[in-house]
Each structure stands twice: as structure tokens, then as C-alpha cells.
């Protein structure tokens, strides 16, 4: 059966689902009418599924240009009376933080949930910020699932909570919940409905002028206080008591799984309070649990967020128990947990003098795919900078697959900070140092936040050469469409926004080159690096993972190969390997881009095309 058919099957079915897919199903069972996102690992699969099911379920779905826009669109949809859903990776909420925080003051129309997927251990991220801090900062309720089943079920509860208190709810996952696969029991899919829009009647709530905001702030803290003692949502939290034990563990999210396994495998007896609602702390169940246990260990990944709250609560209650966790170094603050880390903390608490060791596996580092346009681009630009005697220039790069240019043999990134930063940081360095800088930014990142940055760079008079690496997609997260192309739904007549038109409108000098034409890239780069002022080179070539028919592959003629290994040492394609004294191309891995056959990679022209 096709994935979609199974995924849309009725109540009572059980399906093996990724946490993110379960969240998408939960959204459908909650009757959402509108969903928006900017893709980012580990949240991307939610959008992959919602985009596919949108036509059959009557929901509107879009990939917005960035997370702030996605948030504001979803807020608008909520005001218009549709249950709305916005989701993003953890750092995406940095971009959407502005509307997020104030939307808590105004409240909403129909239910609204914002999912944020944190990435402990930074598998595909630049930091591992704990977004529960954002929920706390904004006074937003936070709901944390620990498994795919809960991910689906808690979505429905999130919408109920959201509507009961007219408040956006933060739905917080981590990589191991988003990317855990387990059987999920289905409920009914609810078709979207539209409630009355009351924006006109309630403009004193939705217009955040200071006089209104001053009235709304105490209302918000009052809502949160009500939620902390609302037993209607008690199903989010659970207690497991173990007769005779006075050692308690308070935990949430994926950590609960590690706690359960570590207790079972170590034989240590403990009571568990598992919180699904982690802001505000549900007071009744938590106080009762604290009174039942002499010592409590708080087990949570990343920051001691719960621990700080529980310690403060304990102080308010007159110190009724002993709290321990990260603040007294029983557990680490950094990187994701494992059963091992949790077991060691439990053994320590139980006074057992032994530890288990974790030996991490060292897998191969990621690299550009065969046929990737970035490989020939960086290979050529590096060569051109050397030819022009400008290998010393500062290289500001950005977020995307091309971040991999940081690694050998390219070494083509000195700075990578956040989405869109290549242009602004590069401009800052240029203005402050008086030196030319080079920036690299992908097409999707350019649309996300590079456009204001490049207009600002022009206004600042920055001396910069900016490469826009246009591979026609948001590649790293799963090949989502960029605004250069139509969305799949409702915009069939949309002609796309060309990067060239934006640059023309902004009055920025640019040229366009083919990402696989190494000679052209080298000539353009050498010519442009010598000029002063702001110049853009659009390097265009499709992502190798986009659907395409492979029409040929390339092979090395062993008689002609000089054995210089330039194609391996400097071009570095996974399809090319050393075979004795010559190079060899794996015909299956080769994508047929032909960039290695150029004289810059193979000076003796020993690489030839084989038509399929």
C-alpha cells in the first residue's frame, strides 16, 4: 500500500511512523486548516507529509520564505478562524521570535500550535539552544512528547489547550523524538472548519500598541497561572510509583525513555514523574510527587530548565525535598543523552560505585554528492582566487549543504554563523577592515534572509564579491521548492521570482554562470575579484538529488591517466577512487555531471563520457 493511503487510513489503524510523521497525523486529527513552515532538520518531515496530504485533506500548506513569515501567516490564519500549525527547527524560532513573543500577549483566534524541533548534539545544526527557554521567556505553554504515539496524541491536546485559553502553544521535540520510528495508533481525521473572524471586534487585543500591551501582559501571566492548576490537561503528565522507594526522578521528552531503560537495566528502584506540560509546571501533581520523595533527580537534555523551576518551587514550599541534577553536575549540560549517561547518574544517586562507558562511533564525515554543483563551483572558485593571488581574502559562508565547503580539500569557509549572515558579516568585515571579502549564499538562504542583507551591503558601500549558489531547491532539508518555482497548491500560475530580477531591482551588478562550466567560473571570478565594489556572481546548476534522468556516466582511460590524482585530492568526488596508479570512476555512483572531465580537473583529458 502506498504511504499516503496508509497514512490517511481511518481510526483504529496502526502504522509505523516517524515522530515527525506522527505530528503531521496529529495535526490532521486536530482539524488544522492551515500549516506553514520553513524547512529545517530535524523538523522537515512534518512538511514533507503535510505537503503531500494537503490536496486530499482540504488543508492549506506552504513553504514560506522564512520562519518569521511562516509564523505570521499561521497567526493570520488563526485570526481568520482556522486552526493553524507552524513548525520549524530550533534556530528557526530565533527568526520567528519577534511575532512569537508578542502573539502570546494578543492571544489568537482559532487554535494555534508552534512546533520547535531542538537538535541536541547538533547533528545538522550550528548550536543546540534549548527552546524551552523561549517558551518561558514568552509565557507560552510548552508541551513535550516522548514518543511518536505521544507526538500524535499531544497535538490534539495542544489545540484544546490553545483554544481554551486563546494562547499559542509551543510543541517541543528533540531530534530523537522527531526521528524515532514506532507504531502509532490512529484516531479520526477531522476536516478543517472555520470559526468566525473577530479581528474587527477585538482590535484592542490584536493591535499591540503600548496601551493595549500594558493591559494584555497581566492577562497573559494570569492565563499561565490558571493553566498550572488546570487538571483538564492532567493527561499530559504521569506518575509511576514504586512501593517502598523514596528516590524520585522528574523527567520529560526523550529523557523519559532513557530513564525507563536505565532503571530496568540497572535494577535501581525509583518513582517517576513524567511531565508532558513543562511550562507552566503543573503544580498539584508536582508538589505531591515532591512530598512523596526524599531525593529527586531531574533528568532532562540540554539546559537545567525544569530543574531550575523545580528548585524554585521547592524553595517556595519550604524545602520539602532534595533536588539534584545538572546544577550540581550529576548530569552534563552539553550534547544529547544516552541510556549510558542517564544510567550513570542513577547509579550515583543509588550509591552504587560503578559506571558504564559509552564508546561513540566515528562515522565518515558528510560530503558533496556525486553530481553536486557545489563541488565544481568551490573547486573552480578556489583555483581562481589562487590564480588572482587573492587566496588571503576572508570567505564568509552560510547555512546549507555548501557549509561542507569548510572541510578539506576545499577549505572555502572562514565564517559560518546563521542564515543570511554571509553577506552581512562579510559586509561588516569589509567596511571595518577596508578589505574585500567574499561571501557564499545558497538560493533558498538568499530568499530567507539574504535579500535585506545584500541591499544593506550595497547601501554600506561594502567591497564584496558575493556568490549566490543556486541549485534550484532547498537541498539540505529534502529538496523543498524555493520561490523561484511555483508551490504545488493553488499557485499554478505563479511564474516564480527570479534572483536576477531582485538584483536588478536593487541596482546590484551581477553575472550568471553555469556551475559545471569551470572555465567560465574561473574567468568570471578572476575578473570580478580585481574590481572594487559589490558584485554578485550567480552560479547556477541543479541539485543532484532533484529528479533527473542520468544520460551518461564518465570513465577514466587507464592508458591516458597520468596518475596525478588531482581529481581525487582536489576535486574530491565520492564516485572517483584510486585504483593502483590510476583513478577509477564508479559508473553507478557517477551522476554524469562531467565536471571532472574538464581540463582543470584532468589536465591530460583522460576522463571520457559514456552515453547510456
Amino acid at each position, binding site marked *: 500500500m502506498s504511504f499516503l493511503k496508509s497514512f490517511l487510513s481511518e481510526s483504529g489503524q496502526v502504522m*509505523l511512523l516517524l515522530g515527525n510523521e506522527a505530528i503531521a497525523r496529529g495535526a490532521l486529527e486536530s482539524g488544522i486548516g492551515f500549516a506553514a513552515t520553513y524547512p529545517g532538520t530535524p523538523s522537515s518531515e512534518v512538511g514533507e507529509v503535510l505537503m503531500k496530504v494537503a490536496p486530499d485533506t482540504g488543508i492549506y500548506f506552504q513553504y514560506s520564505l522564512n520562519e518569521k513569515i511562516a509564523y505570521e501567516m499561521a497567526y493570520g490564519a488563526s485570526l481568520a478562524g482556522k486552526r493553524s500549525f507552524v513548525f520549524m527547527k530550533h534556530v528557526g524560532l530565533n527568526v520567528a521570535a519577534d511575532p512569537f513573543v508578542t502573539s502570546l500577549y494578543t492571544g489568537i483566534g482559532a487554535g494555534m500550535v508552534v512546533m520547535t524541533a531542538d537538535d541536541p548534539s547538533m547533528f545538522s545544526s550550528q548550536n543546540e539552544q534549548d527552546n524551552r527557554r523561549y517558551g518561558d521567556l514568552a509565557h507560552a505553554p510548552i508541551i513535550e512528547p516522548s514518543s511518536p504515539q505521544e507526538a500524535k496524541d499531544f497535538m490534539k491536546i495542544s489545540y484544546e489547550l490553545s483554544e481554551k485559553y486563546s494562547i499559542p502553544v509551543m510543541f517541543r521535540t528533540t531530534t530523537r523524538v522527531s*526521528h524515532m*520510528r514506532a507504531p502509532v495508533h490512529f484516531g479520526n481525521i477531522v476536516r478543517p472548519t472555520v470559526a468566525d473572524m473577530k479581528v474587527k471586534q477585538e482590535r484592542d487585543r490584536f493591535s499591540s500598541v503600548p496601551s493595549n500591551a500594558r493591559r494584555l501582559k497581566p492577562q497573559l501571566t494570569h492565563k499561565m497561572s490558571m493553566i498550572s492548576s488546570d487538571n483538564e490537561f492532567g493527561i499530559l503528565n504521569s506518575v509511576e510509583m514504586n512501593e517502598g522507594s523514596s528516590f524520585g526522578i522528574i523527567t520529560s521528552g526523550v529523557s523519559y525513555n532513557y530513564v525507563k531503560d536505565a532503571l530496568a537495566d540497572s535494577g535501581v528502584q525509583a518513582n517517576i514523574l513524567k511531565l508532558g506540560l513543562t511550562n507552566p509546571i503543573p503544580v498539584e501533581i508536582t508538589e505531591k510527587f515532591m512530598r512523596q520523595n526524599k531525593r529527586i533527580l531531574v533528568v532532562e537534555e540540554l539546559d537545567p530548565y525544569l530543574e531550575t523551576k523545580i528548585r524554585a518551587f521547592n524553595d517556595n514550599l519550604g524545602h520539602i525535598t532534595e533536588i539534584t541534577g545538572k546544577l550540581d553536575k550529576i548530569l552534563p549540560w552539553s550534547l544529547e543523552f544516552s541510556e549510558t549517561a542517564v544510567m550513570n547518574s542513577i547509579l550515583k544517586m543509588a550509591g552504587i560505585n560503578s559506571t558504564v562507558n559509552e564508546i561513540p*562511533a566515528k*562515522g565518515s564525515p*558528510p*560530503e558533496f554528492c556525486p553530481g553536486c554543483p557545489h563541488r565544481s563551483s568551490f573547486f573552480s572558485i578556489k583555483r581562481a582566487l589562487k590564480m588572482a593571488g587573492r587566496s588571503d581574502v576572508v570567505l564568509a559562508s552560510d547555512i546549507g549543504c555548501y557549509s561542507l565547503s569548510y572541510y578539506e580539500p576545499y577549505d572555502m569557509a572562514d565564517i559560518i554563523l546563521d542564515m543570511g549572515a554571509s553577506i552581512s558579516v562579510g559586509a561588516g568585515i569589509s567596511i571595518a577592515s577596508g578589505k574585500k571579502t567574499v561571501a557564499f549564499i545558497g538560493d533558498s538562504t538568499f530568499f530567507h534572509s539574504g535579500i535585506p542583507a545584500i541591499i544593506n551591503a550595497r547601501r554600506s558601500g561594502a567591497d564584496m564579491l558575493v556568490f549566490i549558489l543556486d541549485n534550484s531547491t532547498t537541498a539540505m532539508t529534502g529538496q523543498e521548492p524555493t520561490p523561484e518555482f511555483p508551490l504545488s497548491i493553488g499557485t499554478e500560475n505563479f511564474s516564480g521570482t527570479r534572483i536576477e530580477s531582485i538584483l536588478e531591482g536593487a541596482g546590484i551588478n551581477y553575472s550568471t554562470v553555469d556551475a559545471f562550466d569551470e572555465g567560465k567560473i574561473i574567468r568570471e571570478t578572476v575578473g570580478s575579484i580585481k574590481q572594487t565594489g559589490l558584485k554578485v556572481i550567480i552560479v547556477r546548476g541543479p541539485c543532484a538529488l532533484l529528479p533527473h534522468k542520468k544520460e551518461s556516466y564518465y570513465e577514466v582511460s587507464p592508458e591516458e591517466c597520468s596518475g596525478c590524482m588531482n581529481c581525487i585530492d582536489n576535486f574530491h568526488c565520492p564516485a572517483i577512487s584510486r585504483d593502483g596508479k590510476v583513478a577509477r570512476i564508479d559508473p553507478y555512483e557517477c551522476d554524469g555531471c562531467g565536471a571532472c572531465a574538464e581540463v582543470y580537473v584532468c589536465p591530460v583529458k583522460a576522463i571520457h563520457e559514456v552515453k547510456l
Partner: protein
Amino acid sequence: MKSYRIVGRGGQGVITLGKVLTQAIVYSGENGIMSEIHGLSQRGGGVVTDVKAGDSRSPLIMTGTADYIISMDRNEAISNMAVLRKGGICITGSGAESAFSENTYEGFRCMEFNPSKIEPGLDPRGHNMLLLGIFSAMDPFPSPEFIEKSIAENFSEKVANANIEAFRKGRGYFTDMEIRVK
């Protein structure tokens, strides 16, 4: 409880192999969970997925406790050896000259199979199911019927049969080899 670490490099069908195995575990009436890594971390680099059958809830396998490593790539298998328990089994694909060879890494025996030598005509996209077939010939759980049902569920109709065929070839190869050894 049984646990399986499935590894390889991006594009080798590691996640698909894990999904097929996990689904077959669920068909067997056991609880099955799997963890996987997406995004930048899988671009051509090492891919790791952990599969568990039974009551365990943690998505990750602890060092020294895995029953199996099933690997599409020898180097990835070697870098994951520490996850195996004593007596755990390592099955890996390789590009070696012979169809089958046996080596010891980090004190663990590893059985290496070159799918291109076992089935020279097989599309490399079927190598993951061939290796799953070899695993299935070693372990009756989950049953080959459930694994085949799972393959049918996880692939499009167009390629499901070719993948079931690859799975059967792997099973047949190892079963024949065992008979020969005996």
C-alpha cells in the same frame, strides 16, 4: 529484547533497510522502534540507524549491547564495532575480491559479503535487501514471510518484487554456503 545497528553511507539504503526490519518486527507482534538521522549528517557520510525489538524505549543502543551490526560498508561497520555485545554478529557488505570473507576487527568477528560477486547482475540499489536476506538466513526472527510483507509495504509496486527477489537471493546464498560448510 534484540537490537540491531544498521550502518552504511548516504545513498546506500540504510534507512530503508531499518524501516523494513522494524516493520517486520512489528508484524511479528513485537514492539519495534527505530532511530535515524537526517539532514546534513547524511550527505554522503556515515548513516547510523538503531533498531530495537522488545520492551526497550530508548532509541539508541548502548555500547556493548547490540546483537547485530548490519552494514552496507566495511569501514562504517568497523567504526561501529564497539556497539556489539560479546558474541554479537557483524554482517557487512564489502568490495572485496571474494564473495565471502571473514575478518576480526576490535576483537569482533565480521562476516563480509560482496553483493556484486554474489549477484553480479543485481542493481546496486538492491544490495541492502540482499544483505537483509543474508541476515535472515542466520536468524529466524523476524520470519522471512514478515520481512517479505514488509518489503512489499515499503517499496512501490514497481520495484517491490525486484527487492523481494534480492532478499531471497541473499537468503539462498547464505543457506547454501552453510550447507556446504557443514
